[in-house]
Structures are given as structure tokens and as C-alpha cells.
């Protein structure tokens, strides 16, 4: 295996270098004193200061955050409902159409989703603004939530729910007391996924946003079209740090809950 391990080490090193070097360069040059993004001229944090003074970016960040919180929360509720219906709902009229509508947005090009929603909003005379972006983001991210949640629902033991029903729970109680705690980690990762998808989205937001409701990606896109600027590097660094901290924290929490679950299961097995 020696020759292979050497090969594997090289491909891992090159692979991760490819994935991470661009972002490392981006972060380093956000601390550059010069306006030129490619020539190093000493350490400075002035671009972060300028960022804090840039009202347009702060306003856009606020709109983006509002949209992301609202749309991911609604999408989590709707997506969890949809997943429950798909996995546990049995047969009903139009089930095939329903599951088709859940999976189609996952593979739909963003330009088409954006165009079609915009034409709908114009058709029904809805003014474009925060509301229309929330509606658009909820629609595509609920599908992602539903895929994440239903993969958890498929693997979990249905007899637990049946036991709760036998012991006198109403279906709603059984869901709240048994099902929800078990699928909670999947629901939370669904929410996180919906949240980041919404933060990240440029194309659909460009179609559905009005002039008074510019989101951060739209602002960044119109700025970087003119070329690279250290201020955008600073903004990117802030966003990359938030995501990194978030992902590491989430994975530590899920690891801890997995360890605890294993311990509980072992104790339950010993008690029997």
C-alpha cells in the first residue's frame, strides 16, 4: 500500500489546497493597506472600518438577514409538514404531483425559478419587496428542508409513534412528544440549510427584489462586476468567518448529542 498512500497524500494535499487557497488569499488581502488588491502594501484594518461606515452595505445586510430568518423559518415548518406527508401520509389524490413539486425545485436552474416567480408576482399585482423575496426563498428552500427531514423520518422506528398512540396520545401529542424530539437534529439542519441558501442567493433575489429591498448578494454582485475591491474582500472575510464558526459549532453540537444518544442507548440496553 505504500505507493498508493503516497499518491493519496498528494491528491489530498493538492485537493484541499485547491479548495482553500483562493479563500485564504481573499482573507489575507482584506488586511492590505493598498487599494490594489494584488500588491501587498502592509497590514491595515481600514477596509473593515470603511465597511462599517458604508450605509448601503449595512442596509442590504439587514434586509438579507430579515429575509433569511423569515424564509428559513416558514420553509422549515412547511418542509417538515411536506416530509411528514410524503413519508407517513399514505396515499392521497395527487401524491405524485406533490412529490414531483418537492423534488423539481432542487434541480431547477435559478434563472428559471426567478423568472417564473417574477412573472407571477407581476401577474397578480404584488409589489416587489421583502415579502416577494421571502415568498420566493421559502418556496425553493422548503424543498431542501423536506429532503433533509424525510431522510431522517425514513430511518426512524415507526413503532415508537405507535406505542405513544397506544398509550393514549392523540396524533398531535405523539408528534410533539415523540416524533419531533427524534427528528429535531434534522429539522435544525434543514433550517440552517434554508438560512444559508437564502443568505447566498443572488439570482432569484435579483428577479424578485424591488428597488427598495436590495439584498447583500445583489449589492456585492453589482460591486464586483466593476472589478475586485478590498472592501468586498473585508466583507467576504466577515461572512466566511461567520459561516466557519457556525459550521464548526453545529458539528460539535451534533457530535455531542450523538455521543449522549449512544450512552442513553447503552444504558437502556443494560437496564433490560
Amino acid at each position, binding site marked *: 500500500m505504500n*505507493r*498508493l*498512500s503516497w*499518491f*493519496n497524500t498528494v*491528491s*489530498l494535499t493538492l*485537493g*484541499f489546497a*485547491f*479548495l*482553500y487557497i*483562493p*479563500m485564504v*488569499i*481573499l482573507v489575507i*488581502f482584506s488586511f492590505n493597506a493598498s487599494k490594489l*488588491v*494584488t*500588491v501587498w502594501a502592509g497590514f491595515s484594518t481600514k477596509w473593515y472600518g470603511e465597511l462599517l461606515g458604508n450605509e448601503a452595505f449595512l442596509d442590504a445586510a439587514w434586509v438579507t438577514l430579515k429575509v433569511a430568518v423569515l424564509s428559513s423559518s416558514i420553509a422549515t415548518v*412547511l*418542509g417538515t*409538514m411536506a416530509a411528514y406527508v410524503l413519508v407517513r*401520509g399514505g396515499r*392521497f389524490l395527487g401524491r405524485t404531483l*406533490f412529490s414531483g*413539486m418537492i*423534488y*423539481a425545485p432542487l*434541480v431547477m*436552474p*435559478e434563472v*428559471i425559478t426567478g*423568472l*417564473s*416567480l417574477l*412573472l*407571477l408576482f407581476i*401577474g397578480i399585482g404584488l409589489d416587489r419587496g421583502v415579502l416577494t423575496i421571502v415568498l*420566493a426563498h*421559502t418556496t425553493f428552500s*422548503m424543498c431542501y428542508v*423536506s429532503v433533509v427531514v424525510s431522510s431522517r423520518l425514513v430511518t426512524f422506528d415507526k413503532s415508537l409513534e405507535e406505542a405513544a398512540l397506544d398509550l393514549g396520545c392523540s396524533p398531535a401529542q405523539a408528534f410533539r412528544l415523540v416524533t419531533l424530539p427524534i427528528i429535531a437534529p434534522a429539522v435544525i439542519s434543514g433550517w440552517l440549510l434554508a438560512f*444559508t441558501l437564502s*443568505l447566498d442567493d*443572488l439570482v432569484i433575489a435579483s*428577479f424578485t427584489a424591488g428597488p427598495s429591498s436590495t439584498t447583500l*448578494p445583489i449589492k*456585492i*454582485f453589482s460591486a*464586483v*462586476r466593476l472589478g*475586485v475591491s478590498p472592501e*468586498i474582500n473585508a466583507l*467576504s472575510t466577515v*461572512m*466566511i468567518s461567520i*459561516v466557519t464558526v457556525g*459550521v*464548526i459549532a453545529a458539528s460539535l453540537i451534533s457530535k455531542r448529542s450523538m455521543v449522549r444518544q449512544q450512552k442513553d442507548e447503552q444504558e437502556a440496553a443494560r437496564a433490560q
Partner: protein
Amino acid sequence: MRRFLLIAVPYFWLLALFLVPFVIVFKISLSDIALAIPPYTPTLDFSAGWAGVRAFFSALDFENFTWLTQDDLYWKAYLSSLWIALISTAITLAVGYPIAYAMARAPEEWRPTLMMLVILPFWTSFLIRVYAWMGILSQEGFLNQFLMWLGIINEPLTILNTNTAVYIGIVYTYLPFMILPIYAALDRLDESLIEAAEDLGCSRLSAFWLVTVPLSRNGIAAGSFLVFIPALGEFVIPSLLGGSGTLMIGKVLWEEFFSNRDWPVASAVAIILLAILVIPIVLFQRNQQKQAEAEQ
């Protein structure tokens, strides 16, 4: 009643905000451009009663689709999108497979960390990851500085605003989608099968081609579709990294809508893109189903 609500709420949400918008796009693709608000004709006029509905339907035609076949711009854009998506999928596979392979061969205790390192870029903003390459690929960018420092080139290369930059951008941003399904397939692979092949006289390389690759076929197919499908309709990468010569249909649709304000043609472009996408999407679904059946 409760069950009805549980089904009806997400159902009607998707009907109203997914299916109905599509019907509207289809309808507008059959309309004509007009100097009005909204900028197309005909619009459905219920006040005229049945005659209004009849007039509406008789004014719809396939003129925009004929137009798309006559003007070179569109079919060239479709072909070049297909080509760019195909080539970049192949490169992503060539780059991603060795990484996935090495991850599956790495010590058990490293694997969760390696997985997280692959997933982390996926959570970071897509736009920022594409933007990062603008500073690297430009004339005075890091890649040119590095290559000149090495003495490989004397003059800076023009990479930004060419198709090469688009390939790099697609490979970079979609690489995690390729690595993860292949890794999942290789992780499940029974090591003893390779040992058996080697015992039976296969060289290491032929054991790889005859055993490992065929057994990771489903992962390769899933990863390739996950790169190919979004790359085909891509807008951000060609518009930031590509040049004026980069023709991709997502960009054409965007410009038709926002710059030319020709909504009927933009809608027709969308309908044809969707028709092209149906083929890989159906193949992808079939692959996923086959995989799910194989696991049972």
C-alpha cells in the same frame, strides 16, 4: 380535518408558487412583445366574456420559438452551454475522484474532519467563492505573478474573461458535489474484493479499473449529474469570470429579460432550457432509484 390541513398547506403553497408560475412562463412564451405594462400581448381580459378568452387564445403562437431557431445567437448559446457543462463535469470528475478515493482510504479517525473540510466551502457564499478567483486570474493576479516568478512565462496570460476561467470557476464551486457521492460509494466498498482481484493476478492498476471504478459507478453518475445540471443553467460564473465571447444560456436569458426587456423571448428561452434539462434529470432520478433499490 387535521390530516387534510397537513397535506393541503404545503400542497397549495407549491401549486401557487411553483406550478402556476410555470404555466405563466409557458403562456408568456407564446405571447408577443409589446410596448406596454406588462410588456407583452395578449393579456387575458375577462370583462369581455367568452369572446375575450377566445381572442386571447387565438393571439398565442409559437413565433418566439421559431425566432429562437432562426437567430444563431440562441442555438449557439445552447450548444456552448452544453459543451461547457460537459467539459467542466469531466474535469471535476478527474479532479474529484482522486480526492474522494484518498478520503476513503484515509485513517478512520480523520474521515469526519476531511468530510467537514469538503462540506465547509459549500456553506460559504457561492458569490464569494467565484469572486475569489477574479483576483487570482486577472492580468496582474496571483496566478500570473506566481508563474512569472517561477519563470514559466514571461508575459502575463489572459485568463480572466475567457472560457478557461469559466471552467476553473465551475470546477472549483461544484467540486464538493462531485466528491461527496463518490466518497460515499467508495466508503461502502468491500476492501476484500480488491484483495481477491489482486490474489487472482490483477495488477493494482487493473484491479482499480476492473473492480473499484465499476463499483463506484453510481457515485460517479450521481456526482456528474449534480455538477452537470446546475452548470448548464449557470449565470453567476459566466458573468463574473467569462468574457464577452462566453455564450451561456443562463446569461442570455438574464440579458433578454433585464437588458432587452423582451419577456416573451426570455420565457421561450427558459422553456427550451427546461426541455433540454428534462433528459439529465430523468436519468439522474433513475440512477438514484437504482441505487436505493441496490441498498435494500
